[in-house]
């Protein structure tokens, strides 16, 4: 167990270690905390953070060193599993892997070990750099994360489910999950990450996941963010893709007071393909910010982005999608679409596509639309006897459905449709 504690000086938001067991304070962690303290939290003046209000996050005195594997039992976590999924469940509490709550059976297509292992050092931090303040924080405080290593030429038949809990029932916890996925050449794996919170206090989940997708490997990573209204989440996903590899990620954000997702995809060799899909269904005072960066560094790569927001009440949606096509990246296909519906007069959407293209033989497109509810369609439904609430739900489902359709895991798809129906407040069963 980690014995570190920390303090935050409220005025300067400096975070430091105290009472550190010296063997825990590696030079890397010390450097990371120094780096963080030099920059501090991002502010609205920072171009990449300009629409996102971080004041609650900044003003909450989090415990960054919360105890792990708290009193949760197998039966507590059962309902958070994806029903019907043939999954290997890896449970993380406050970022720390808890083997006693996780699936025991393994196949020999992959291995897991500590993200702090010698083997992991090979990849750790190669993509997620500490010049991002939240990555610096994660690098300083992460604890108990995993390296998931898929062997070359192997297909992991079961889904690997990373089940994350932030347990802020006793105090405000900042969890710093840090995981690494390495898919060696010709391997195939499907992962799910779901994020849940147990809070009485404000919680922060500051997650960093690095993917190394080997030559001709196939990785699908589907993320369900279903934390509650006291939960803040910062989530960084990095993927580095080798030749002819595929990396598909779908991020479905239903819960959380404030969620900021950062996806960074680097297509470093020829023939790579990436799909980035996002669906946010936000209401009340939720803020959901999706930042994507696809770096086309090599020729003949393709990327497809589809991001949708359904925003009700005072919800605030942000989409910032950057496509970077380097000079060498000829024959690039890069597409991006951001579609949004505002269900209330006060919901706000900021959508900003950014294309930077330095190659000449490329196909790129982007589009962003934000509209109101389709009153004509609503009337059509109602004229057939479908009540306003259900009509709205069906329409919203229709709008959102194509993002969920992109997910290849039928069990997760069904799970998300159920969650969507719940969030849209309808008893209608959506079809998969």
């Amino acid at each position, binding site marked *: 167990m980690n014995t570190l504690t920390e303090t935050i000086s409220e005025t300067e938001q400096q975070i430091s270690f105290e009472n550190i067991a010296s063997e825990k304070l590696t030079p890397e962690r010390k450097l990371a905390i120094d780096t963080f303290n030099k920059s501090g939290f991002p502010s609205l003046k920072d171009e990449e953070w300009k629409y996102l209000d971080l004041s609650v996050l900044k003003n909450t005195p989090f415990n960054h060193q919360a105890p792990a594997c708290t009193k949760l039992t197998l039966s507590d976590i059962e309902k958070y599993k994806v029903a019907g999924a043939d999954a290997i469940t890896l449970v993380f509490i406050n970022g720390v892997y808890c083997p006693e709550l996780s699936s025991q059976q393994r196949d020999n297509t992959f291995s897991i070990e500590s993200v702090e292992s010698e083997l992991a050092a090979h990849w750790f931090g190669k993509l997620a750099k500490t010049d991002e303040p939240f990555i610096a924080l994660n690098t300083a405080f992460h604890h108990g994360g995993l390296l998931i290593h898929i062997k070359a030429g192997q297909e992991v038949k079961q889904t690997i489910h990373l089940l994350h809990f932030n347990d802020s029932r006793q105090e405000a916890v900042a969890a710093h999950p840090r995981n690494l996925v390495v898919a060696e050449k010709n391997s195939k794996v499907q992962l799910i990450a779901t994020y849940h919170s147990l809070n009485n206090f404000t919680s922060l989940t500051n997650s960093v996941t690095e993917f190394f997708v080997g030559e001709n490997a196939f990785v699908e990573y589907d993320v369900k963010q279903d934390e509650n209204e006291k939960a803040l989440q910062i989530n960084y996903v990095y993927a580095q893709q080798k030749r002819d590899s595929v990396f598909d990620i779908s991020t479905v954000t239903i819960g959380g007071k404030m969620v900021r997702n950062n996806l960074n995809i680097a297509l470093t060799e020829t023939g790579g393909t990436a799909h980035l899909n996002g669906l946010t269904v936000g209401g009340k005072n939720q803020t959901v910010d999706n930042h994507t960066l696809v770096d086309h560094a090599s020729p003949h790569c393709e990327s497809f982005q589809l991001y949708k927001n359904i925003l009700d009440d005072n919800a605030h949606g942000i989409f910032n999608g950057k496509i970077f096509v380097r000079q060498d990246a000829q024959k690039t296909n890069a597409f991006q679409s951001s579609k949004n519906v505002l269900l209330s007069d006060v919901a706000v959407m900021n959508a900003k596509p950014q294309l930077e293209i330095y190659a000449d033989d490329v196909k790129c497109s982007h589009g962003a639309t934000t509209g109101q509810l389709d009153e004509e369609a609503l*009337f*059509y439904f*109602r004229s*057939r*006897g479908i009540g*306003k609430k259900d009509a709205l739900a*069906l329409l919203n489902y229709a709008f959102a459905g194509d993002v969920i359709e992109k997910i290849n895991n039928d069990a997760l798809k069904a799970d998300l449709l159920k969650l969507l129906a719940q969030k849209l407040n309808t008893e*209608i069963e959506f079809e998969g």
Partner: protein
Amino acid sequence: MLSIKNLKANIEDKEILKGLNLEINPGEVHAIMGPNGSGKSTLASVLAGREEYNVTEGEVIFNGENILEMAPEDRARKGIFLAFQYPIEIPGVSNANFMKTAVNEVRKSKGLAPLDSKEFLKLMREKMQLVQVDKTMTQRSVNEGFSGGEKKRNEIFQMAMLEPELGVLDETDSGLDIDALRIVADGVNALRDGKRSFIVITHYQRLLDYIVPDFVHVLYKGRIVKSGTKELALELEEKGYDWIKEEVEI
């Protein structure tokens, strides 16, 4: 079953219906004809409960209840069906799912148990034959990419599924070739059971060869200015509306 008295309705402060009266008994078919812009679709919309229209005067009694204060879904559940002049496309919702939801909502309002998938499919198959809707059409999104004729057929299919007491068909025949017209008309006729009533809005007398009306009304400038039997439709087809306009203006 339907009694419209002195109905006046505005859209954006412009009066469109200017004191309209119409009585419909169970089992009757009433055709409504009239020049463009005379208010035919407005009448249909007001009956179905479109909220943009503002009823300023009059009443609409359907089976003894004033429906003007009712939400559109409640009117539908009580048995009013509007076949739209321009059916809207709804990407992402399959026709089958749409209809299943609608049928079960209507059933629920009547205190009936919802149909399960098997029962629903059976009902759907039966009604599909009626208007020659094929399976692919039910699996596709509502009206998305449908041809004009397919959209109109789909409206009648929906009507057959929902079995309303009053069907209001707003130019369901417009844009149909003669074969498609026959399919649609056959579908409507199959639903005539002596109790179900229809308001058939059309510009073309030929529809009325297939769906034979009990009465024909001319709507002009927001009022029914002339009523007659099916021969009136023939006369209108022949002579146009000018003679009626003259009669009215005098």
